[in-house]
């Protein structure tokens, strides 16, 4: 498989006041791959995601999406590029004044220029794909459970059938069966649509089943980005504890068993 770079992060530095989160971080994402991003709490995974999709202006360094720097583009082009991205935020970030169905239909109406009826019909399908029960479409986000929020947010991220999908802890708060379904859905979509996925996760099962590569964030940079097996063998204290601790080994055995 020839590797085409979709996202290229080079020399990224992010600081909040005196608190430096990233120093000289480099990362590449290739077309059609699912990259798992791991790291301890507060190591800057969400901040990395936000700077890639252009929500944070890095102090130094550059992020290139499809070879272009999002922050340097004129507004119209930037919007066009952004439509090729789908983002699931850690907290869901559903629009609280719209029903779940309207949340998913919004980008379809605004960008794909679908009629409201078509958009809502398609939204219903996406919700079903994300594993939500039919009646959930009429609810407002305030009356959803935590797992349902995640699913609805996934449906919205998938609304425009994006080229690149950013997921911030998508399986946190899902029941294990739902999480396994989620992994399968991700693989199916990736295979059929050639989706590229940037997935922040702490879910070891997801890492082993779904991810082609894993990037470990530590010491303010990407310590290593490689196949799961190679990363698990990497000589670093934190990584060894992460992958070869009791939970890590159990997850690995489960995958090997299949």
């Amino acid at each position, binding site marked *: 498989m020839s590797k085409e770079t979709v996202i290229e992060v080079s020399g990224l530095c992010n600081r909040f006041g005196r608190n430096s989160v990233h120093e000289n971080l480099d990362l590449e994402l290739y077309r059609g791959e699912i990259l798992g991003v791991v790291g301890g709490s507060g190591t800057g995974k969400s901040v990395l995601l936000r700077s890639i999709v252009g929500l944070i202006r890095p102090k130094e360094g550059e992020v290139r999406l499809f070879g272009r720097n999002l922050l340097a583009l004129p507004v119209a082009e930037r919007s066009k590029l952004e439509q090729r991205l789908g983002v699931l935020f850690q907290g869901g970030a559903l629009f*609280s004044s719209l029903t779940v169905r309207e949340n998913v239909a919004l980008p379809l109406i605004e960008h794909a220029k679908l009629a409201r009826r078509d958009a809502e019909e398609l939204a219903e399908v996406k919700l079903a794909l994300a594993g939500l029960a039919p009646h959930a479409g009429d609810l407002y*986000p305030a009356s959803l459970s935590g797992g349902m929020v995640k699913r609805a947010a996934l449906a919205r991220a998938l609304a425009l059938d994006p080229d690149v999908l950013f997921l911030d802890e998508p399986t946190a708060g899902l029941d294990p069966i739902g999480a396994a379904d989620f992994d399968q859905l991700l693989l199916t979509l990736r295979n059929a649509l050639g989706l590229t996925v940037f997935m922040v996760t702490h879910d070891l099962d997801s890492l082993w089943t779904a991810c082609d590569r894993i990037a470990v964030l530590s010491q303010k940079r990407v310590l290593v980005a490689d196949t799961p097996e190679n990363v698990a063998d990497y000589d670093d204290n934190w990584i060894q504890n992460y992958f070869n601790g009791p939970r890590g080994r159990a997850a690995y055995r489960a995958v090997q068993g299949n």
Partner: protein
Amino acid sequence: MEAAEPNIRREKTRTVLSGQWTLAHHRLLKQLLVRETPPEGGVVLGEISALDTAGATQLANWLGIERLERVLVEEEGLQPERKALLQTLLKALKREAPPKVESVSPVIEFLTLLGQQTEQLARHFWQLSGFVGLVLQSMFAILLRPSRWRVTALVNQIHQTGLNAVPIVALLTFLVGAVVAFLGATVLGEFGAEIYTVNLVAYSFLREFGVLLAAILLAGRTASAFTAQIGSMKANEELDALRTLGLNPVELLVIPRVLALLITLPLLTFVAVMSGLTGGALVALVSLDIPLGQYLGILADVPLKHYLVGLVKAPIFAFVVAVIGCMEGFRVSGSAESVGRHTTSSVVQSIFMVILLDAIAALFFMEMGW
């Protein structure tokens, strides 16, 4: 790009689908699928050059779920990834029950709405009185125990609601004072009684306008802030978090705000009266040629009770504004839109209540001859 468009080609025993079945071609696809009836014979999907979930959904809706399932079993030219996508989609579609829309006659709908609104209004007043009771009860409970006084929060609220409001209150009442003086000059001047303009300004500001304007400004400025602050905490489950920590949101959030307004509104009333009188004095001096000394002399003859009649209303208005602002905050539910709705509602309600109470008080004082 001709070839890229979705297309349906009929051959002898089978129907061949081709082109890009994607979201970008949604409208074209829709038109195409309305034109073409679902075929009887075999269907070939292998020539479709691009397929995403939107296109797949349209395909499934067109062929029907069972039909597509059979096609997928028979089809051999289709890439396995696409087959997996379609199968996943079919599984999802089968789970979904069609949403049913019940139609209700407009009369029933109207009656339902009327009933709901009435019940809501009744419940609202019930809640308001309950909340007032709750606030009074916790206020007295706290007053007896100085260890539970939240001095920092109180001072902070006084700063925000009182000190920060001084410029706007002073400016507005100054202008209204000048306007009242102009009005007096116009009307009273016709009778040659310009000098009574001073009395007009003095009585109106001491008895009514000082406290009324200050209270209305507070309602617009502070009741809305209270609702938005408490409301967004409610929407963010922060109030629930407080409760589970064994803390009482009323004691923590409401009491300091109510007390702060009880302290600041009388002070702001004083500011309002003073700058209203100043505005009147300026107009008197400039356009009526009443020297400052004479103005002050007339003021000095106005009995003190008129000032007290105005001032006595301040704590009542303050309590009403604060309680309505806070209660609306507690009534917020979940969404950002709800925060906005209740903020508006708290401003409207508190201004309404302030004016209503003022009218009642004016009637009462007049009958009492105060």
